[in-house]
């Protein structure tokens, strides 16, 4: 059974399928199944009896081939098409079990892209196991290649730069050699060695010819005659002595032997047998970043996608629950706040109601008249103010003005007095447009608009017989003097003793008069009518 925190990985070495169970960083168990009918059956029984947890598969098979090639620097569909043609050319039978990786660009020439092509040359070898996994409904998250995964160990062994040949042994009968340049995988091969399964301490003598053969091949293939190749060998405690005594560094090949136990310790993983490096690579594969596998058909991972979708839905459910709980909590808190506030408000309302009922309710009818009373008093005040514009005020002001010595002798025979009031609507408009004429209307004593005296003043001035110019001058003098007063708004002539205005008619007679006739004409003649508009007194 696989509990929470448990992970597992299927490790297929070509002859055997091993299942590693990890509990966090500790290998909690492993079991192996041979590649035969019996092994398949047992594997199936195992899968059926264990939890259908998501698992990935790592391949370390001799039937895996790598090629390095260059393609034109293109993108998207074009790149896919180019790579697809390359795959068809090199690995026609592998189709779904191929992998490509752009590793950079050439620095010279067309600056083509460098591409690493990989393929399982005999997919049926893997398919036999995948079919069982599918039958058992186990979600397969990816099919990984050990050589491709093995680059993740380079930083751990300090081999990120230069030419590196990583030599490791995952089963006693095989030796895996992977060649890297500046951390990027260039090629890999697995070679068969005849090592005894029980005694692995003599690995040096089996490995040396294979490594030398590989180095020779690499040097010729990649033209590295003068370059140093760093060979990193992974070995168990039992193999260290053999490896160190067999592989001695020289000028062109530097050998470094790494104890598997030390690497496990460095990675913090425990419980691994340090006999071979399979467990170490299984751990690296299990903890790789990203989800992309190297091989396989999409249909083989559909259960994994289902599992992912299921997990996403469960996670979404949890998020929905959390968000909902937050919203519910917020709503309930708000609701409680409102209820508390309502209770307080109800108490205040009750207090207001009590105060009103006790102090004011009995006087409601009386209060209803208060505004009316206010209005009535206001209106009476307004009428009283306007009624202060009286004929007495006008006559006193006029009397004072005509007493001016500049005017001379003048008789006032009749005054027709009334008032007028400024039309406020027109006045408002005239403020916006200063050129609009101010209009007046008959006085409405309830209005607060300015009230003015308007009077037709009829009178006489003594005139000298046939001296029209003097009469005109005197009348003009009267009008000018009245107009110069601050109280007077405007004075206009209605009738003049001598009508020299172009719009008026004028007729007279010139003849010789006796003295008595002259006196009579002096008293009767010189009649005029003026329209005098006067402002209200200042206190109004």
């Amino acid at each position: 059974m696989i509990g929470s925190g448990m992970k597992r990985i299927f490790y297929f070495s070509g002859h055997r399928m091993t299942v590693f169970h990890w509990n966090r960083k500790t290998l909690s168990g492993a079991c192996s199944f041979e590649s035969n009918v019996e092994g398949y059956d047992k594997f199936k029984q195992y899968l059926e009896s264990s939890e259908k947890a998501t698992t990935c598969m790592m391949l370390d098979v001799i039937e895996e081939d790598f090629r390095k090639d260059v393609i034109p620097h293109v993108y998207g569909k074009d790149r896919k098409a180019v790579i697809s043609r390359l795959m068809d050319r090199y690995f026609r039978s592998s189709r779904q079990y191929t992998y490509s990786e752009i590793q950079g660009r050439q620095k010279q020439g067309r600056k083509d892209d460098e591409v690493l092509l990989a393929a399982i040359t005999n997919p049926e070898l893997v398919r036999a196991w995948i079919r069982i996994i599918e039958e058992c409904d186990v979600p397969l998250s990816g099919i990984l290649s050990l050589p491709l995964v093995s680059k993740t160990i380079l930083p751990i062994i300090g081999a990120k730069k230069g030419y590196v040949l990583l030599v490791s042994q995952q089963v006693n009968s095989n030796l895996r050699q992977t060649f890297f340049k500046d951390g990027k995988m260039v090629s890999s091969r697995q070679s068969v060695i005849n090592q005894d399964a029980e005694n692995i301490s003599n690995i040096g003598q089996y490995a040396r010819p294979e490594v030398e053969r590989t180095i020779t091949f690499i040097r010729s293939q990649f033209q590295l005659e003068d370059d140093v190749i760093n060979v990193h060998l992974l070995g168990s405690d039992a193999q260290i002595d053999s490896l160190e005594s067999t592989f001695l560094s020289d000028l062109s090949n530097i050998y470094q032997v790494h104890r598997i136990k030390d690497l496990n310790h460095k990675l913090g993983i425990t419980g691994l047998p340090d006999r071979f490096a399979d467990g170490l690579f299984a751990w690296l594969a299990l903890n790789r970043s990203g989800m992309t596998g190297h091989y396989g058909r999409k249909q083989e991972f559909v259960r994994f996608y289902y599992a992912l979708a299921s997990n996403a839905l469960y996670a979404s459910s949890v998020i929905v629950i959390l968000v909902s709980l937050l919203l519910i909590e917020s709503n309930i808190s708000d609701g409680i706040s409102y209820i508390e506030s309502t209770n307080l408000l109800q108490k205040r309302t009750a207090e207001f109601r009590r105060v009103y009922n006790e102090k004011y309710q009995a006087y409601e009818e009386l209060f209803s008249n208060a505004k009316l009373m206010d209005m009535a008093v206001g209106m009476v005040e307004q009428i009283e103010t306007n009624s202060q514009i009286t004929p007495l005020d006008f006559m006193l002001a006029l009397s004072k003005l005509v007493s001016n010595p500049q005017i001379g002798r003048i008789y006032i025979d009749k005054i027709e007095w009334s008032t007028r009031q400024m039309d406020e609507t027109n006045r408002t408009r005239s403020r916006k447009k200063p050129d609009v004429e101010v209009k007046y209307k008959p006085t409405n004593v309830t209005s607060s608009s300015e009230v003015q005296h308007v009077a037709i003043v009829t009178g006489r001035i003594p005139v000298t017989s046939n001296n029209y110019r003097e009469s005109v001058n005197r009348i003009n003098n009267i009008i000018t003097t009245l107009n110069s007063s601050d109280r007077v708004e405007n004075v206009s002539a209605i009738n003049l003793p001598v009508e020299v205005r172009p719009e008026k008619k004028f007729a007279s007679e010139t003849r010789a008069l006796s003295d008595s006739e002259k006196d009579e004409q002096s008293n009767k003649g010189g009649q005029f009518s003026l329209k005098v508009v006067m402002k209200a007194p200042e206190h109004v």
Partner: protein
Amino acid sequence: MYKFSINQELKKALVFFAIILLSMISMVTVSEIYKSNANDKNARTVGEMRSWRNKIEVANRNNQMLVQHEDTFKKLKDKFVIGDENRLSWVEVVQKVADSRRIASVKYNIASQVLLDKNSLDKKYAGIDVFKSVMSLEMKFIHEGDLFVMLNALRDEAKGLVAVDKCDVELINKNVNDGIIGENITDNMRAYCELSWYTLKKSDNG
């Protein structure tokens, strides 16, 4: 060819998600309703509280107004400015002044009382009906002072609120200007004036 079908695990997750989603939506909706109801009730209570507070404020203002205008209002009622007009008082004042000043001729005429058009009044006086009675006064007198004594007496002594609308004053005896006054002259001048008496009443819809 691979046959697409939703597997059992995904189905379970979907059903679980759907149940959770629906139940949470229901619970959130219920809590929203709870909050909304509480909020509505709170808003209603706030409105009710404000209404009572406003009533108290208005009552206070009215009370202040009553205190402020009570005496003035009473005087206006006593002076027959508010309520029904008192024509007799006006006539008595006219007769009294005519007698005391020995005015040669005083003719007066009081027209029927009319209600002023509401549209001619300021909107702030909407609750009041304003009535106007026009009194025309025709006098013959020796000196213009007689006219002004008459108008002042009407304003100050008569029961009512009066405003002079127009007044025509004419010198009959032109010799007065030259300082020649006859012994039995009683009417050097004549005047025709129109006065408006205003009374205020509470409007029917006020």
